[in-house]
């Protein structure tokens, strides 16, 4: 047995974080550690590495090859880290020292552990970078982290972790910050390394689907405990534990969509040949201005009552397009109309037009002024009305909006920090609904939510769309979400719309190669038992 | 003597310097740095304090007791009508650059000082001179437009020293004179160094080298003395430290007199000060002893008029203005100002003015005169008060010797216009006889005292501090000078 955790518990400053964690991992195997935020999965990893904050107290035992790591001194642990156990982190953008070249950072792992000369370490670093598919011919080891993309940086982090061919690798949400296509590549890479080196891998994720296809064994965590564990196949085929069932159900959830009419004769939002350029800094002092075209001649229509998904990887221009539709930024070419009226950026945009359109943002924490109460927050769009309701009419409107999103009227007097993430998104939706717009733009509106909460919010959105004949422009990088709620899907890549069609068309018979690539990269849950 | 012997001697000097062998260098502390070193081209007292009698000499000179003695002129004769002075010059005198001194240099110097475009600060000294002629290389005849018994006195001033045409261009930064010391170097903002003139015509100086160090902050002055960075401070700027320095056996404190009448100047043309009653009220509201005690820590002699107490013609007129706030209030009421009035008190930087001003403001407040203090830099003071006459009250020490004549000038910043006094001064000019001069001077003192032209406070004390082993420094300050000719270290 490579790694065995027995009755592992952890408390920080007296507050219990982990309780009675038990799991085992053999060489050459992948253990998937799954849980929603706050379940303690990362802390388990840090406990194994013994990289815990001050005031931590560990109980139970962690055995690596039969040696209890708990008995190791800090100096011994330094020998273990990087040598016997490697670790990969979630955020590749910040996990590398910005001031050192990638070659040096990989070589450093070698240098701190062995007697390898500088040249030998450099050679090992080169070889390792090649193993993670960053060959020196294409990606010079003299590059700095900021010169690489997110996926490439994550490969560097992996290279650092495996340079000394450790027997155990811990990957904490290694793909969460990455695009879906990059995620697939990184997962493949990790699996390949496990097989090549006969290494053990703990793959930590909040996403059941990510782990499902890579892991041999699975442990499901919640509130600092392991609730369910076993071989991956049996976990999914049996769904013994109720929490596993719930998690599975939420991940595979498809909201019921009924009672909604799409009026094909009434185009609501028409985007016609829209382009948006960004100014780049001048190359030379008197050189010509250069521009970057973030959105390139995009055209599409959203009809009344229709839910349209817009998917694409980060940087494809979907956020820029959103801002243009909302009239926040000016466009350089083309027109955007809502109900026939042109959208103009800035103060020139008539209030009547703004009134027809509202938005829900991604971050449930950043979307609200923390100093205002809910009643004031959700009535902010009243600014767009010529005669905003006052007195009891205002209270009625607030109550109605809150109730329609499943909150209570008592919530009107609360501050935003008193709500959970899911509830905050409900408040955001209430704010969007309160002036009865025709179109709501959902900008990654469920991306930051845990799966179970996400399922509920998606249900709510589907229900509201039916009840109020609302049109949605549903912007997301997550294809599965889009698939479950949208009538039609638009696929964007590098500023261009590469494909559009009904949801079925897109997912069943993708025409464009990029669409196919995207769909294939989506991790899929194994079939659940009947 | 071999090099080794030299070294040995040097080592011995070093080893014994404090014990037996007398030192031959001195560092003199001064509060203000001279802006340049040409005493004939600018007013600053600091110039004279460095160069007078050390580098430059005049035809006559002041002695430590204020009397006038021959210098480059060994003697002089006055014509019957008092209009012609003929000066006999010393022979064998040469300037520091080696050029010889003769009558032409005297003619050049005096003509330059009294010329139309001259920047001499005391042009008035030469006002009565009609012509200056060299009758032979050792004789100069000065012809006056009217008799002036004070000519030898006037020519003793630092502004009347003899310069050479060959070196005048560089006088501001590298002065060349005939004195017992030769200019060596000037580190602007810090110090001026002079060294002994081996070819001096008279008795050579005893010191090899002297350094004037400029320390404007009183605190720094004290610290420098205590730390031994400065050997003597002839005009020590912080009287509060004197008791402490006096008690220290390392130092000797020398108290002397200066020509500095410290007065509360009053703008005589500005209402309500144009009313003599108001001026008299101010005079009675002032408690001189509190000012001398509080601002000067007891150093200073009360005066009742604009005249130095050590002068033979001095009259003690302090009785004209005793401290009497009741009387002051009554006088104000008589002048129709029973509720008092407001005025300004503009103070130049010296501590006698700043501290004295605060005390006077408090004393005037007691009798109902509200005084707004504003502290000015010298340049602002000259601009606003002295030239602009934009002030109510100010405090300043008039350090020029025998300067009662300023009261005869109605344009002077007091703006005092009294025909009787003006006539007295004209008479004084024409009088050469001592007793008669004395009488005129006493009349003048009485007139301005009884007219309460200004508030007369005290005669500034010369509070010198020096290393106890130094001898030969001037006790008094008949003119602004640090004559080092006779200074030496005792064993």
């Amino acid at each position, binding site marked *: 047995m490579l790694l065995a955790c027995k009755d592992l518990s952890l408390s920080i400053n007296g507050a219990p974080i982990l309780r009675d964690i038990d799991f085992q991992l053999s060489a050459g195997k992948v253990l998937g550690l799954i849980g929603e935020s706050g379940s303690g999965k990362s802390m388990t990893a840090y406990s194994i590495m013994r990289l815990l904050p001050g005031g931590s107290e560990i109980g139970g035992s962690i055995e690596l090859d039969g040696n209890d790591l708990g008995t190791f001194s800090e100096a011994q642990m330094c020998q273990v880290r990087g040598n016997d156990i490697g670790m990969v982190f979630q955020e590749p953008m910040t996990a590398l020292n910005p001031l050192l070249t990638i070659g040096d950072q990989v070589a450093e792992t070698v240098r701190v552990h062995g007697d390898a000369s500088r040249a030998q370490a450099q050679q090992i670093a080169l070889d390792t970078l090649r193993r993670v598919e960053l060959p020196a011919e294409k990606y010079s080891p003299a590059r700095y982290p900021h010169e690489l993309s997110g996926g490439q940086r994550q490969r560097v982090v992996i290279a650092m972790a495996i340079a000394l061919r450790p027997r155990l690798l811990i990957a904490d949400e290694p793909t969460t910050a990455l695009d879906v296509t990059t995620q697939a590549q990184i997962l493949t890479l990790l699996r390949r390394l496990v097989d090549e080196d006969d290494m053990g891998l703990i793959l930590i994720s909040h996403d059941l689907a990510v782990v499902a296809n890579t892991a041999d064994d699975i442990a499901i965590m919640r509130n600092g405990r392991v609730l369910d564990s076993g071989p991956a196949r049996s976990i999914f085929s049996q769904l013994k534990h109720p929490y596993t069932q719930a998690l599975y159900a939420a991940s595979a959830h498809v909201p019921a969509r009924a009672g909604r009419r799409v009026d094909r004769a009434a185009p609501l939002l028409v985007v016609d040949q829209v382009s948006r350029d960004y100014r780049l800094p001048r190359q030379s002092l008197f050189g010509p201005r250069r521009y970057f075209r973030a959105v390139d001649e995009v055209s599409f229509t959203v009809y009344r009552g229709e839910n349209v998904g817009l998917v694409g990887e980060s940087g494809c221009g979907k956020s820029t397009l959103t801002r243009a539709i909302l009239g926040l930024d000016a466009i350089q070419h083309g027109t955007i109309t809502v109900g026939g009226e042109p959208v103009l950026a800035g103060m020139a945009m008539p209030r009547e037009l703004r009134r027809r359109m509202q938005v829900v943002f991604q971050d449930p924490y950043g979307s609200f002024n923390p100093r205002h109460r809910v009643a004031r927050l959700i009535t902010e769009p009243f600014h767009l009305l010529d005669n905003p309701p006052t007195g009891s009419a205002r209270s009625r409107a607030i109550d109605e909006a809150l109730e329609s999103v499943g909150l209570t009227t008592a919530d009107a007097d609360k501050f935003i920090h008193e709500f959970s993430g899911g509830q905050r998104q409900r408040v955001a939706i209430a704010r969007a609904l309160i002036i009865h717009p025709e179109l709501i733009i959902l900008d990654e509106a469920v991306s930051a939510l845990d799966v179970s909460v996400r399922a509920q919010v998606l249900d709510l959105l589907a229900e509201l769309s039916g009840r109020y004949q609302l049109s949605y422009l549903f912007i997301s990088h997550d294809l599965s979400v889009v698939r479950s709620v949208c009538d039609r899907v638009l696929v964007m890549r590098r500023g261009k719309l590469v494909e559009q069609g009904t949801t079925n068309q897109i997912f069943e018979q993708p025409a464009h190669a990029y669409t196919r690539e995207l769909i294939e990269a989506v991790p899929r849950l194994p079939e659940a038992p009947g | 003597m071999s090099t080794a012997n030299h070294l040995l001697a040097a080592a011995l000097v070093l080893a014994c310097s404090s014990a037996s062998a007398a030192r031959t260098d001195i560092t003199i502390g001064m509060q203000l740095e001279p802006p340049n070193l040409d005493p004939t081209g600018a007013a600053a007292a600091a110039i004279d304090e460095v160069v007078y009698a050390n580098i430059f000499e005049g035809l006559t000179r002041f002695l430590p007791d204020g009397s006038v003695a021959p210098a480059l002129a060994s003697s002089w004769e006055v014509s019957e009508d008092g209009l012609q002075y003929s000066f006999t010059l010393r022979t064998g005198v040469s300037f520091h650059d080696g050029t010889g001194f003769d009558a032409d240099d005297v003619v050049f110097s005096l003509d330059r000082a009294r010329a139309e475009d001259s920047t001499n600060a005391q042009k008035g000294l030469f006002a009565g001179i009609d012509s200056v002629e060299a009758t032979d290389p050792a004789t100069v005849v000065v012809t006056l437009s009217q008799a002036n018994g004070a000519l030898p006195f006037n020519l003793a001033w630092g502004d009347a020293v003899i310069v050479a045409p060959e070196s005048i261009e560089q006088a501001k930064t590298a002065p060349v004179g005939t004195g017992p010391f030769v200019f060596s170097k000037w580190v602007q903002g810090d110090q001026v160094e002079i060294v002994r003139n081996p070819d001096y015509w008279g008795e050579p100086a005893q010191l090899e080298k002297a350094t004037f160090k400029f320390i404007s902050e009183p605190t720094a002055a004290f610290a420098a003395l205590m730390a031994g960075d400065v050997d003597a401070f002839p005009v020590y700027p912080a009287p509060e430290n004197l008791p402490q320095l006096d008690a220290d056996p390392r130092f000797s404190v020398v108290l002397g007199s200066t020509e500095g009448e410290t007065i509360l100047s009053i703008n005589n043309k500005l209402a309500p000060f144009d009313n003599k009653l108001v001026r008299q009220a101010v005079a009675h509201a002032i408690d001189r002893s509190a000012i001398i*005690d509080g601002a000067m820590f007891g150093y200073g002699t009360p005066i009742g008029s604009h005249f130095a107490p050590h002068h033979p013609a001095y009259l003690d007129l302090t009785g004209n203005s005793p401290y009497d706030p009741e009387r002051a209030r009554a006088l104000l009421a008589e002048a129709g100002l029973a509720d008092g009035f407001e005025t300004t008190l503009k103070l130049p930087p010296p501590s006698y003015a700043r501290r004295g001003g*605060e005390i006077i403001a408090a004393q005037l407040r007691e009798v109902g005169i509200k005084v707004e203090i*504003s502290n000015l830099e010298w340049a602002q003071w000259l601009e606003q008060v002295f030239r602009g006459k934009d002030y109510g009250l100010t405090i300043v020490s008039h350090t020029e010797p025998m300067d009662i004549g300023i009261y005869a000038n109605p344009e002077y910043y007091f703006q005092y216009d009294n025909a009787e006094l003006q006539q007295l001064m004209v008479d004084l000019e024409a009088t050469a006889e001592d007793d008669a001069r004395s009488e005129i001077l006493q009349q003048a003192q009485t007139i301005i005292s009884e007219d309460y032209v200004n508030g007369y406070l005290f005669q500034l004390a010369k509070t010198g501090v020096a290393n106890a082993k130094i001898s030969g420094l001037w006790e008094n300050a008949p003119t602004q000078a640090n004559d080092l000719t006779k200074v030496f270290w005792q064993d």
Partner: protein
Amino acid sequence: MRWLQHRNLWLGAMLAAVFVAAALISFLWTPFDVTKLNIPEKLQTPSMEHWFGTDHFGRDIFSMIMVGARTSIAVALVAVSIGIVAGVPLGLAAAARHDSPLDEIIMRSNDLVFAFPALLIAIMITAIFGPSAINAIIAIGIFNIPVFARLSRAAALGLWTREFILAARVAGKSASRISVEHILPNMLNLLIVQGTIQFSLGILAEAGLSYVGLGAQPPIPSWGRMLAESQTMITFAPHLALFPGFAIVFTVLGLNLFGDGLRDYFDPKISRGRH
């Protein structure tokens, strides 16, 4: 009480409060009249009658420190207010019109002011317009403007990218309205903390200017001038220099601790202490 857990906060608040109280009380009462000179009683050491002794004019030092607190606090407070009143709107405007010529002009002007050594310019201003408390206030105030302009611009720029600001823009609110309604309240913490720091710097600056004779003029007592006047007497009457010196140190210390404490209180995450 949450604030009790912040040691710096209450320690600083207490120290600062002592001096604010002294300043306020001095309007109503001081042990002795600071405008009256009593030269026969000069340079007394601390006693039951004169707690901190008397100065070279026989004035009660304790009373002078009380009234001096008034001067220090008034000068620093007004100077900081100038900085806030002029600087914050500039910063908000620059952020609202980010990358516009207005932003550029405001930021370049800030850089220009920063390029001047502050104390030197303060000395020049007072030298030009004459020394007085008012001119000291102006001199110190001018240097507070870019501090607050820069701070509020940076804070506002950060806030402008936040989604609740986008939401307000989608609700059709104008830039100035958003600045006042959303941006300003959310950077109030920062402004208060910076205000406290500038306040303590203002007290130090006032002391420095008064020390070189360019601050409040006599007979108004001022700590800096008390130090300057005591300097030549420090060897035989050290209490003259010690008490005003301690008054400055403790007030500035109190304000700094208070500022640090406030920062911790507003944002426990970055309880780092001040730069």
